């Protein structure tokens, strides 16, 4: 940098008035085939970036980001699963030596040693040698860490019940979206049948003893048949009322808790929306499972 007497500045600033020609440095003196970052190398780098971006966008379009039902803190049966890059820690805490009274070992000591060693690697491996096979202890420990992480992640993915996970994501979503049409005649009949409510719940969403009535894919005739003759654990002849009422109720259930066409009532659109998003959800859930 030019300093001292004879320097001219722009006004009273510290910017020199004398312009230097804008010539890139010459790297011909450097060893090997060294080239300039700008523009030679950066242009190639951009091509790598562009190819990477295309692959990334294809992934994004092919697999939309999953979204399950809205969070329900009161749900106790949900099988939790962290994002895949925390699975190694999640899995570690399942082993006997690292859970229960020894949780501290799994949650703090083992990850603490591993990440602490990673952070302090320059002071743990102080030799001048850089080639991996010339410093077997450092390379070996790193390989051990990588293999352990991959193994734990693999085990966690392997042990997780992906079908149940896809189902619980889907169920939560449908419960969110399907609303029972409470103005329908069928709803009134359903509410008057204590035997129905006992197993299928007051909101028709099912329970431990009976399945969800809002998601059946049965026809009206089939529903009538099940109500009259029973099915599995469901006893026969529980319905109290006229045949006409039975048919109205069956049509109501066959139509997933909405008033059948022809009868007044609202909520038809809500049903469509619920079904669509529900189907999408299950697909995504299983796809994600296969991938990760």
């Amino acid at each position, binding site marked *: 940098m030019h300093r001292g007497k004879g320097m001219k500045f*722009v006004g009273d600033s510290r910017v*020199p008035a004398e312009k230097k020609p804008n010539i890139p*440095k010459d*790297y011909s003196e*450097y*060893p*090997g*085939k*060294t*080239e*300039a*970052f*700008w*523009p030679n*190398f950066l242009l*190639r780098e951009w091509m*790598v970036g562009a190819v990477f*971006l295309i692959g*990334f*966008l294809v*992934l*994004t*379009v092919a697999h*939309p*980001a999953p*979204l*399950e*039902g*809205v*969070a329900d*803190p009161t749900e106790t049966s949900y099988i*939790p*699963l*962290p*994002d895949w*890059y*925390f699975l190694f*820690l*999640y899995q570690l805490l399942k082993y006997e030596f690292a859970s229960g009274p020894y*949780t*501290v070992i*799994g*949650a*703090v000591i083992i990850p603490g040693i591993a*990440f602490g060693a*990673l*952070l302090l*690697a*320059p002071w743990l491996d*102080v*030799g001048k*040698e*850089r*080639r991996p096979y010339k*410093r077997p202890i450092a390379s070996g420990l*790193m390989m051990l860490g*990588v293999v352990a992480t991959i193994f734990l992640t693999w085990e966690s993915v392997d042990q997780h019940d992906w079908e149940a996970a896809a189902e*619980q*994501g889907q169920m*939560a979503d449908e419960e969110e979206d399907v609303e029972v049409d409470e103005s329908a005649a069928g709803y009134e009949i359903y509410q008057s049948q204590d035997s129905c409510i006992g197993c299928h719940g007051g909101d028709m969403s099912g329970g431990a003893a009976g399945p969800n009535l809002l998601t059946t894919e049965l026809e009206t005739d089939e529903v009538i048949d099940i109500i009259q003759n029973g099915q599995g654990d469901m006893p026969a002849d529980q319905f109290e009322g006229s045949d006409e009422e039975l048919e109205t109720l069956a049509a109501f259930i066959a139509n997933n808790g909405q008033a059948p066409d022809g009868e007044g009532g609202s909520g038809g659109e809500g049903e469509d929306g619920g079904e669509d998003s529900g189907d999408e959800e299950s697909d995504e859930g299983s796809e994600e499972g296969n991938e990760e």
Partner: protein
Amino acid sequence: MLQKVYDWVDERLDITPLWRDIADHEVPEHVNPAHHFSAFVYCFGGLTFFVVVIQILSGMFLTMYYVPDIIHAYESVYYLQNEVTHGMIVRGMHHWGASLVIVMMFLHTLRVFFTGSYKKPRELNWVVGVLLFFVILGLGFTGYLLPWDMKAYFATVVGLEIAEAAPVVGEFAKILLAGGEVIGAQTLARFFAIHVFFLPGALLGLLGAHFFMIRKQGISGPL
């Protein structure tokens, strides 16, 4: 015209040395995949930064629609996913980018480790890099809760249980993160603040230090 504008600014502020310092540095043969294909391992760091840029940009667009409270969070993500034009793409980029940045960063860490590039004089840059690793894991953890769907909520419950298992500071750390005993409205607000303000601030600062050091010291020589 553009040249004149540039000259006008350059005369007053002398900006040429600023960008020439970034533009003019040598790329040695051993890191250039055009000369040795195996040198593609040196691309992982740059690609990690590329995905980070994608994350910042897509995240900025997501906050245009996202509402960080427990009543509207899920609804806003659902709307973003299903109604907003290209909302699915932007959310998809942020979702998959979160995984990709971890993958690329992992590969970058392995490259630096197995080429012994963390040794003197680059110890400090390695430490900053590992801190970046932690910050990005933190971004992944806090971002996972934000859609407020079932898997987000219960993953956070599990994560905070793990944090709570730490001796002495565990319970304090859990309450600090969750904003109380209950994982609920406060937790979502805190995770949003951490995900959008605290950690990105730390990320940008650390990235600045990371790049400053690599420019100052140059890339490590061939093995």
